[in-house]
């Protein structure tokens, strides 16, 4: 009797206690990754210089390098990675499809169309980001409206609508690339591959990441139930329809902000949630906050490599996320058999 009670208690307290440990550990790794990212770059600064600069000393050049270039970019990378991983985890729950990623419903296509239109018109900077966000917003509304339509609504209907709309965006993007003047092409291709040098300020993305992570914490149980199927969830008293629409809108908002700040970086949103599921089991209360941190860590490390591998030349970060993610993921998948 007594033993049984302790076991139940332990089971209840288990996920939460391991959540604390896990988040603590991941936060430490994240801080380490960010320190590394701020310490290396195409101009050589020693770790001592970096620490001195961070604590308020250092030359003007060092301060510019650290505070105006590396730190904002590192924070942007972290926030973007976190947003993408959380959005991917949410999409996988929503669509109950392991192949779902933040872009599966055509959101990045809408954002890319917006961004490329702005570039084609010769605009730069804020206008490209603004146009990308408008495109992402339009794509979300379009899929929402079309999938809502009349008649019954199901995740598979949402998925089909999204995939078809995404192909439409793809065609428009190819058309724009085909008619663009040659000198505009490198900028467009780098944007499409995902590139953190477009990131301007990290704060909106970081704020959203923190806000959404806190907002999702109390929803974890409902998401766990939903992941097993809508009927079961409804039977257990979850308001399925409103929950599904909120997930869709939240995931869209996360992806829109990520795409807006760094272009469409592939792979993070697909692989990070799966990796964590293989390691931790499919408990959304653990997975979602762990995604926010791990996605951030992966992208910070990938961007550090992209900036430094052949410095001062730069690689697109999307290439590195795939090169790092694919073998890691395959290894985990192989081990979990």
């Amino acid at each position, binding site marked *: 009797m007594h033993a049984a009670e302790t076991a139940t208690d332990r089971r209840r307290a288990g996920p939460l206690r391991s959540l604390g440990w896990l988040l603590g550990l991941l936060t430490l790794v994240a801080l380490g990754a960010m320190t590394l990212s701020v310490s290396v*770059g*195409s*101009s050589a600064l020693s770790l001592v210089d970096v620490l001195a600069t961070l604590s308020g000393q250092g030359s*003007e*050049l060092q301060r*510019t*390098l650290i505070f*105006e*270039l*590396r730190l904002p970019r590192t924070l942007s990378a972290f926030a973007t990675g976190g947003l993408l991983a959380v959005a991917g985890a949410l999409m996988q729950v929503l669509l109950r499809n392991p192949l779902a990623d933040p872009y599966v419903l055509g959101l990045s296509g809408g954002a890319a169309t917006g961004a490329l239109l702005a570039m084609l018109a*010769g605009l*730069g900077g804020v206008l490209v980001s603004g146009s990308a966000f408008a495109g992402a917003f339009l794509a979300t509304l379009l899929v929402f409206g079309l999938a809502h339509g009349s008649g019954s609504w199901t995740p598979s209907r949402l998925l089909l609508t999204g995939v078809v709309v995404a192909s439409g965006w793809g065609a428009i993007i190819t058309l724009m690339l*085909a008619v663009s*003047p*040659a*000198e*505009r092409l*490198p*900028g467009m291709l*780098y944007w499409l591959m995902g*590139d953190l*040098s*477009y990131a301007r300020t990290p704060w909106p993305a970081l704020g959203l990441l923190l806000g959404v992570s806190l907002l999702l914490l109390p929803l974890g149980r409902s998401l766990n139930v939903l992941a097993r199927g809508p009927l079961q969830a409804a039977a257990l008293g979850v308001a399925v329809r409103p929950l599904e629409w909120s997930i869709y809108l939240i995931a869209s908002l996360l992806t829109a902000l990520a795409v807006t700040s760094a272009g469409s970086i592939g792979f993070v949103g697909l692989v990070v949630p799966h990796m964590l599921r293989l390691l931790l089991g499919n408990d959304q209360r653990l997975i979602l906050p762990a995604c926010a941190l791990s996605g951030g860590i992966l992208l910070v490390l990938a961007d550090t490599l992209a*900036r430094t591998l052949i*410095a*001062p*030349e*730069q690689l697109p970060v999307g290439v590195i996320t795939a090169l790092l993610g694919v073998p890691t993921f395959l290894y985990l998948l192989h081990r979990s058999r």
Partner: protein
Amino acid sequence: MDLSFARLRRRVGLAAALLGLAPALLAAPICVIDDAQREVCLQAPAQRIASLSPGATELVFAAGGGERVVAVVAFSDYPPAARALPSVGSHSRLDLERLLSLQPDLAIVWGSGNSAEQIDALEDFGVPVFYLEPENPEGIAQAIERLARLSDSQAVGRQAAEHFRRGMAELAEQYRDAEPVTVFYQVWNKPLMTVNDAHLIGQVIRLCGGRNVFAELPRQIPRIDIEAVLAANPQAILAGGMGEENRYWLTEWRAYPGLQAVQQDNLFFIPPSLVQRPTPRLLEGSRLLCESLETARARR
């Protein structure tokens, strides 16, 4: 007597006519080596030239063959007469049907810009193909001379080539012993791209007594980051821009007041069309570039 004189006149006339025809009948074909080191031979000077890059169009016009150009590609905007010529698509995706229907007897192609398959197809259709890709100022002068031979306008071509050669040589002479100025040339802003020493612009920078801070990078147009520019801390920043009068790429550098170039206000705009194409307009672009560096020198 009268009769024989008439006969004689007729004979002389016939001989003269034959002599007049002779050069056309007996002339050796015009053979010129192109930039792929192939010998391109024409039986007669080209009458219908297809110019398949914007740079080639400028060079053909400079060589005096402008009136014989029957086809150009998109963005062939100089000289203004080129804009009125029929376009056969973008340089990377030619409309072969349109091109062949214009019946060119010579195609000036761009090895690294046109699609290799389409160049092969042109050759299969029997259109003589001349590869043109000048890689340095002397290459530009020689390109003009060779194109002039193909279009039988040597007088114009020789003069244009000499004018260009002399202008560049004067610049080289003028800035031979100039104090070195460290330079960053910005090709594009997002992504940030520059040139190395092998690039035509890199060569012009050297000619003007500049020292390109990214001279040693392996690729001709490397993509770099802002950090590398700050670390190199050039004395002058030169940039083109989107369009001919767009200077906002330069004003963006003012966000880094630690840069020498910003402190001394050495941010110079060079119209991209004057330096980014290997054409005779490079002379004007080089003069502008040299003057900019001279200004930077004076501000030290």
